[in-house]
C-alpha cells in the first residue's frame, strides 16, 4: 500500500520544469546570464508540483527561514505579489539567493517530491515578477553602523531597518554588493539584479556610504560614538597564494584580481572600460571551488582555452554541480588529482609544472587527503595562470583595532555574533573564513535580531 501511494504521488504532478538556458556555443562569447529563469507558465506548473507537505522539510533546510511552502502556494495560485511578500518577510535578497544559493544542499535537498521542486528558481521567479513593496516601519531611534555591503552586511542592514533601526552601511569599494559585485560574474548573477535588490534595501531606509574604508577613514571607536552598535561583515577578501616558484610572473592572477577586474571594473569591456585584463590563449585555473569555476568561465569568455586543475577528484570538488556542468558544457577541461609544483616562464607564463596525486585517508575536512605520486611530474603549456585556492578574512579591520582575532585573521565572535568589544558584532566570512553567500546572509539576519533585542533591552 505504501509503495502504491508513492507511485501515485510520482505520477500525479506534471513534469519538472526546466528553464531555458543560453546555448553553450553562444554564451561563451558573451557575459549575459546563462539561465533565463522560469516563464510564468513554467513557474506555475513547477509550483503546482509542490506537495504542500504538512511538515515542510524544505523550510528546515533554508538558512534564511523562508516560508517556502506558503510562497510556492502563492505562485501556484498566481498570487505573485503575495509570493514575493512572503519571501521578503525573511529574505531581502530573493533575486540573488534564487541564483546563487546552493539549494541542492539546502531546501531542495529535503524536498520529497520526485523530482525535487526547483525552489530557488521559484524564488528567482517571484523576485522578478512582482514589485517589492516597502511598508511603513515604526522607528526605534537606534543607530547601527554596518561595515561591508556584501551578503552579510546587506542582510543585517535590511533586517535592522525592517525592525525600525537607522542603519548606515560603510563600503570600502566604489560599488555596493561586496562579493556579489566584485566576485560572482555577470553570467551567473546579473549586476542589475544585485543593484535592484540593493535599491530595495535602500528604500527600507538603509544609507550606504561608498569609498569608506573603515579602519582607515573612520575607526570602530569613532563609529561607536555615532552609533549604538556596529556589525562587521567585511568578508573573505584576502586571496591566498600557493608559495610556489613563478607565482609573481606576469599573467599569474589571483582569482580575486581576475574576477575584480572583470566584474567590478568591467575589464571584459576593455577598452570601453579603462581597466585592462590580459587576454590569454591558454589558461590554467588552480582550484576546485566556485571561485575557480567562475574564473575559468570568465577566461573562456575572454577567448581562452581553459583547464581547471584540482588536486582531489571530481567528488571532492566544493563547487556546485550546476556550475561544474555549465563549465563542462562550455568546453572547459578538468584535470583532477593534479597539483601545481611551479609556474614556468621568464617574464610571462610559458607553462605550469604539475604532479599527479592519489587520494589517501580522510583529512580534517573529511575529504580524502591528496598525496603526490612520485615521479609523475608533467607540464601543461599555458600563457596564463589563475590561482583560486581560497580566500581568507580581510585583515584590514583586525589590524587597525584591538579585536580578538584567530590564527587566520578572522574576527572571533561568539554564538551571538558578539566580538571582544562591547556593542561590536561580526558575522559572515570575516568570522568563518570562506563560506557561502547564504551562510553570510543567515549570519547577518541572526545578528540583526540579536543586536535589535540587545538595544531594546538597553
Amino acid at each position, binding site marked *: 500500500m505504501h509503495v502504491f501511494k508513492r507511485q501515485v504521488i510520482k505520477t500525479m504532478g506534471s513534469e519538472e520544469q526546466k528553464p531555458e538556458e543560453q546555448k553553450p556555443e553562444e554564451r561563451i562569447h558573451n557575459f549575459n546570464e546563462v539561465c533565463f529563469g522560469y516563464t510564468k507558465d513554467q513557474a506555475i506548473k513547477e509550483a503546482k508540483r509542490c506537495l504542500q507537505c504538512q511538515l515542510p522539510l524544505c523550510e528546515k533546510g533554508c538558512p534564511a527561514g523562508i516560508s517556502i511552502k506558503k510562497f510556492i502556494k502563492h505562485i501556484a495560485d498566481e498570487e505573485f505579489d503575495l509570493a514575493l511578500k512572503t519571501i521578503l518577510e525573511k529574505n531581502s535578497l530573493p533575486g540573488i539567493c534564487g541564483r546563487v544559493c546552493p539549494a541542492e544542499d539546502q531546501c531542495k535537498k529535503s524536498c520529497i517530491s520526485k523530482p525535487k521542486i526547483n525552489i530557488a528558481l521559484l524564488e528567482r521567479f517571484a523576485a522578478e515578477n512582482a514589485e517589492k513593496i516597502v511598508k511603513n516601519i515604526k522607528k526605534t531611534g537606534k543607530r547601527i553602523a554596518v561595515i561591508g555591503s556584501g551578503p552579510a552586511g546587506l542582510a543585517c542592514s535590511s533586517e535592522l531597518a525592517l525592525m525600525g533601526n537607522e542603519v548606515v552601511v560603510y563600503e570600502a569599494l566604489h560599488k555596493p554588493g561586496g562579493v556579489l559585485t566584485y566576485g560572482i560574474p555577470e553570467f551567473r548573477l546579473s549586476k542589475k539584479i544585485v543593484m535592484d535588490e540593493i535599491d530595495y534595501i535602500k528604500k527600507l531606509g538603509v544609507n550606504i556610504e561608498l569609498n569608506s574604508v573603515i579602519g582607515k577613514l573612520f575607526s570602530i571607536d569613532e563609529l561607536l560614538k555615532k552609533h549604538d552598535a556596529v556589525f562587521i561583515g567585511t568578508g573573505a577578501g584576502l586571496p591566498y597564494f600557493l608559495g610556489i616558484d613563478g607565482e609573481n610572473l606576469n599573467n599569474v592572477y589571483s582569482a580575486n584580481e581576475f574576477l575584480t577586474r572583470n566584474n567590478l571594473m568591467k575589464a571584459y569591456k576593455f577598452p570601453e572600460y579603462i581597466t585592462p585584463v590580459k587576454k590569454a590563449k591558454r589558461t590554467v585555473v588552480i582550484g576546485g571551488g566556485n571561485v575557480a569555476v567562475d574564473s575559468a568561465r570568465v577566461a573562456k569568455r575572454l577567448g581562452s582555452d581553459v583547464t581547471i586543475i584540482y588536486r582531489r577528484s571530481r567528488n571532492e570538488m566544493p563547487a556546485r554541480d550546476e556550475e561544474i556542468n555549465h563549465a563542462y558544457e562550455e568546453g572547459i577541461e578538468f584535470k583532477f588529482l593534479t597539483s601545481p609544483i611551479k609556474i614556468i616562464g621568464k*617574464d610571462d607564463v610559458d607553462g605550469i609544472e604539475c604532479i599527479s596525486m592519489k587520494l589517501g585517508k580522510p583529512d580534517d575536512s573529511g575529504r580524502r587527503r591528496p598525496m603526490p605520486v612520485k615521479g609523475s611530474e608533467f607540464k601543461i603549456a599555458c600563457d596564463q595562470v589563475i590561482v583560486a585556492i581560497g580566500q581568507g578574512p580581510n585583515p584590514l579591520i583586525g589590524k587597525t583595532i584591538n579585536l580578538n582575532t584567530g590564527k587566520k585573521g578572522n574576527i572571533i565572535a561568539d554564538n551571538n555574533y558578539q566580538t571582544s568589544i562591547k556593542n561590536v558584532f561580526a558575522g559572515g566570512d570575516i568570522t568563518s573564513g570562506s563560506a557561502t553567500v547564504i551562510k553570510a546572509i543567515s549570519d547577518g539576519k541572526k545578528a540583526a535580531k540579536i543586536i535589535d533585542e540587545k538595544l531594546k533591552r538597553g
Partner: protein
Amino acid sequence: MYKIKEKKVLAEKTVMMEITAPDIAKKTKPGNFVILRINEKGERIPLTIADHNLKTITIIFLVVGRTTEDLSKLNEGDNILDVAGPLGNPIKAKKYGTIVFVAGGLGIAAIYPQLKALKESNKIISIIGAKTKELLFLVDEIKENSNETIICTDDGSYGKKGFVTDALKELIEQEQINHIITIGPPVMMKAVSELTRGKLETTASINSIMVDGIGMCGSCRIHLNNKIRFACVDGPEFNAHEVDWDELIKRNSKYKEEEHECMCLKDK
C-alpha cells in the same frame, strides 16, 4: 563626488590637484595614498597624498597613460567620482639622525610630506632628480624643508649633471648618514638599493599596479625576502634591500600593450 578645488601644472606633464575630501584629509598621515576613479568607466589608480589641509588633500601626478591624461583634463570645479583613502601605512616618524631622501620623477611629490614630518627630529638631505630642468617641480618646497638639497638632471640643465645615484655615491663618502628613503621609478630605487646594500638602512616606497588598494586582489604583490607582500596593505614602504626589484620592474610593465591600445583608441 570629490570637487577639484585647485589645479596647477607644475612641470611638463606634471599636474597638481587639490581635492575637497574632508574625511580623508582629517586622517591623512605622511606616506598615505588614495585610490581614485574619475568616472563610471574609469579604472582605479593609486596616488600618493602629497599634502593635506583641513578639508582638502593634494595629489600630484604624471601624465603617463589614459587615466592620468583624462584626469589632467579635469579643471577646477570639476568632480572626481570616487576617492578612497587614506590607504597604506603611514611612515614611522622616527629619530634617525641624518636622513637622505633620494627621489626622482613623481617621487619628488611623495617625499615632500615625509620630509616635512621628519625634519623636526632629523637632519634632512634631499637629492632630487629629473631628465631635464623642465621636468623638475616642488624644488622650492623641498629646499625649504631640507637642511641641504642636491638637484640632479641627466642633461645638466639644472644642478649637477648626472643621476641621483651619482650624487648619493658622493654624499655617502662625505657624510655620516643614518637612513635613506628612496621614492621614484623602480629602476632608480633599485640602483639606490644596490648602492647602499650592506652599508646603509634604506626604505623604498613601492608603486606597483593596484586595483582595490585594500588587500583584496594581490595585483600589487611583490616578493620581499622571498615572501609575498601586498604594497597596498603591507606597505607601501619596505626595506629596499629585501625587495625583488627585477620582478617589480617586470610586473609594472605588465599592461604596456593595453595602455598603448587605450591611448590609440582615444586619439582616433
